[in-house]
């Protein structure tokens, strides 16, 4: 049924989320591409970091039928192991996930051709049209699969869809420039200005990121900066003041805030990870914390607002 033109490349897609309201104007479909050059300690989608397919396991769904064990060609299913999967042997071929009746085993990352992915996102075209919405590419870091991202955005534009991207900014400047003609909106994360801190908490240097941020503003790209508001890690006085200074220097007076949610922590066990994040990441951001960040920005002369809407008084 699928159309596969000869040169139709594929990308590794983590998830496709429809009726997405926080990733740009209107009703949107957000496509999460797998793979990220950063590994932020607070990453709420740890399954998006690795650029390779993985297998997840949700123990609470398992009915113990052992279909996975029979299906696995690598002999990587261990029923006496709480994680169930011997990650050293697993090749992430997906045979276990395909056979698992209760979806306890599931593939993390699925390959899509451009045409197939376009077909998926076009399903909600009627809703985009009515609401001024469209497609948002997110991740992981979508520019990591650059050729796919470029081709997909082109295809979206040819199909008349509004497009947006969510990027952490760690990409070759030339690559970002190549995407610009096909993007209606760029949501650019500014996480930490201090390069040592950035290196420590995200695992990467931030010079390229800041340079790209400046470049996008200079070439008048439709860019909105965003800050993941993570207790103590990004939401501290020094960082916010430095972000404020940076923004003013490039001539921007606004920033969107993405409140931290802690509910990703359970996902670690699905990936067989035993490590547990530091205590400050195990609780949600409170509305007071968010309000104080907004306040700190306003002292810097920056208008900050939550991308999820103001905290509602219920």
């Amino acid at each position, binding site marked *: 049924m699928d159309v596969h033109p000869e040169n139709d490349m594929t990308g590794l897609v983590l998830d496709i989320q*429809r*009726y997405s*309201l926080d990733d740009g104007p209107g009703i949107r479909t957000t496509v999460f591409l797998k793979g990220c050059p950063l590994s932020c300690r607070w990453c709420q989608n740890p399954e998006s970091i690795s650029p390779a397919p993985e297998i997840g396991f949700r123990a609470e769904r398992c009915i113990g039928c052992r279909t996975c064990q029979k299906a696995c060609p690598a002999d990587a299913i261990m029923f006496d192991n709480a994680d169930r999967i011997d990650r050293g042997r697993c090749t992430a071929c997906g045979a276990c996930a395909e056979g698992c*009746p*209760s*979806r306890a085993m599931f593939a993390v990352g699925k390959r899509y051709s451009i045409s197939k992915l376009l077909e998926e996102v076009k399903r909600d075209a009627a809703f985009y*049209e009515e609401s001024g*919405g469209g497609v948002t590419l997110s991740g992981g870091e979508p520019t990591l699969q650059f050729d796919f991202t470029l081709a997909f955005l082109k295809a979206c534009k040819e199909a008349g869809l509004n497009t947006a991207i969510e990027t952490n900014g760690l990409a070759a400047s030339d690559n970002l420039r190549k995407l610009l003609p096909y993007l209606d909106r760029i949501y650019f994360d500014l996480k930490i200005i201090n390069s040592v801190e950035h290196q420590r908490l995200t695992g990467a240097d931030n010079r390229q990121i800041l340079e790209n941020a400046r470049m996008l503003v200079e070439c008048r790209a439709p860019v909105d900066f965003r800050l993941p508001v993570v207790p103590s890690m990004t939401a501290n006085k020094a960082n916010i003041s430095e972000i404020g200074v940076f923004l003013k220097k490039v001539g921007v007076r606004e920033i969107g805030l993405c409140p931290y949610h802690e509910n990703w922590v359970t996902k670690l066990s699905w990936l067989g990870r035993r490590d547990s994040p530091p205590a400050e990441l195990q609780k949600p951001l409170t509305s007071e914390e968010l309000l104080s960040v907004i306040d700190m920005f306003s002292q810097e002369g920056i208008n900050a607002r939550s991308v999820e*809407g103001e905290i509602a008084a*219920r």
Partner: protein
Amino acid sequence: MTTITKQRRALSQRLQHMRRRVIDAPRELGIVRVREVTNAIRNNRDLPRIIQFALGVRETLKKLPIDISDSELIVGKSTEKFKGSALYPELKSDGLIKELDNFNERTSMQFKLTDEEKRELREDILPFWDGTSGFDKWAKQLDKDTDFLVRNLAIIPFNDFQGSTGLSYVDYRKVLENGYEGIIGEAQARLAGVSNGGPEAEDKRAFYKAVIIAAEGVIELAKRHSRLASEMARTAPSEERAKELREIAEICAQVPAKPARTFREAVQSFWFTFCGLQQMDMPMELPGARIDQYLYPFYRRDVKEGRLSREDAQEFIDELFVRFNQVVFLGEYVITRVVDGNSTRFDLTLGGVDRDGKDATNELSYVFLDAADAVRLLHPSVTIRLHPDTPESFFQAVGEVMTNGSNVVQVFNDNVIVESFTRVGVPVEDARDYVLTGCIQPLSGNMYGPSCSVFFNGPKILEMFLNGGKPILSLAGDDADMPSPEYESWEDFYAAFKDYYRSVLERAFSQYRLVGDIQRRDLPNPVLSPLVPGSLERGKDVKAGGALNNASGIALVGNGTLIDSLAAIRDVVYTKKSHTLDEVVGWLKTDFEYNEEERQALRNHAPKFGTCDSRADEIAKDLVDFTDELLLSQPKTSRGGAHVLSMHTEAHHIYQGSMVAASADGRHAGEAMSPGCGPTSGMDKEGPTASMQSVCAMDFTKMAGGSSYNQRYSPKMFDTEQGVQAFISLLKAYFFKLGGQHLQISTVDTETLRDAQKNPAKYEDLLVRVTGYSARFVELTEATQEEIIARSEICGC
């Protein structure tokens, strides 16, 4: 992005008090009506049935004890009790007789009656109806094969003996503009014009006489209130109240006998008319119709002439909303299950296009919408008609009320409904004048049309098809272990299934014609008929086909479950060929006892309706097209109208589901089936846009009987203006781009519902939409509560 501050308008002190009282009051049985109607028949054995009924109604309205409570401005009740149900054993008496001792005690929807009332019913009134009610007469004619289908709940073809006959267009304008004296005058003139001789002329004469007698009854009810108000004014506790009572006396002297002169008289005239209509046919689904339309001329004139402000009008309408809640209906045990939590549907229809196709939304549309939001009681049901030219401000107001957690309104798409009626031969002007009745049944202008007369249990039919024509699960002891059929291909299988489905449906129709004959002969309605255009002109009761437009309908129950089951069989048996049909049926027979692995695979890997999966959606579309063709090919109904298809379930999907064996979608025996026309609860995992597109694979212009489509949202989706606007866009696209027919949402999160189960006292005000109606969550049975919790919570995460 702005956060919405959800300020709910506070009711006036007076209405807060009235609202509290109606919530706290127990349901009671009123027996004056059944006493008088029964006596009228006993004492006038030689008169035609329609005159017997009319005499009974007139006596009831003459004798009904009346009162005017403290601060009310709208007066009149349909029974002698504060919150009362009349009894209608002429429709169906067996449940009343059997359960008489139980109405006080049962766990859901209790009704109070005194020992003396119980004695009178048991000894004097109900024996008269034992074996002679309309239902009894129908049941006696049941053939063996139909009885088999009925007792196994494959079809329920006798809904017209349980209140669905209230599904009628009602022309209240006629009373408001001409008064009941005008109706009597018209009937007298037509009576005088009936030419001599012949049984038809006799019928006509009886009809006109009955209309006159019943109308006299309604006039008398009002006059009695006028006299009472005058008396009470003399001893009123304050001059202010005395003045109000004198006004009431004056209003009740005028209406509904004579034309209404003011907005307030028009509201009172409507209310007396409504109370009168309650005297026949157990009209628990009788519509208030397009009340923003027929009251508007009175409103506009009063405002223009300085007699009325919008605030005054709001106060009257708020009171009217509270008053609706004093009319309740006793149902036998089964009724409390199938309409769990709320048996009454008094629909008010707001907005939409007029008879010429132009937008008809007016200031009263907003006043009524506001009343629904502020009063937040179960009744009346408020339905909003939307079309592409609905003013944006009304869209915004509707979007706001739908998303604020009040859970009291539903919306319909004019484009689809109008076309669905013109398709079955209704003139376009009448089609545009449609009103909502029952839960979700549209009726065109001038239409009499019980459109949920037959409930058709698709998953049960499939169960029997898979088991050689016998049920796998049967409370009647009909279950049997039969060999499953064998087919070479999906096409052969599906064609054979449709043949079987057709045969059951045709049997249901033939039964329904019998029901119609009994309704025509034994259960005429002299109160309703003059208010349904066509009936007076033709000298024919509505039950005999007097209305200008006629329809009756069949409701498919468990549609999503049926689609998913068929899609699963196709996938497993005929596409992947991983199991034989015999194996699959074997799992169903044992309720998957040894096949949890297979059950999980069916649930998680087979195609599901509601996920935009063409393998399920094309079956959905085909079943509607097929049923539609079947309906169009049927002979006309006993009233000369069309059979129309509807897809709403009330709580039938839960009640009937409890008697359906395991199904091939991975559902366990006895679990709830899918609600309304939508996907199985919890199976629409791709979000609202996917679910809507699946649902719209069905051609809703082929569902003139209406449909109910439910979604549940987390309140946090609507914390922001952005969330509300996205919802309004979603609704517009669903209606005007995809061709959706109906939508109702409950805005409540799972956590709240779970907490309400544990602490019901904290949540007595929490309303939820079941399917086409609202109910108090804490009053629902556990099975229904669980089904609502199982609905996917749309939370954007």
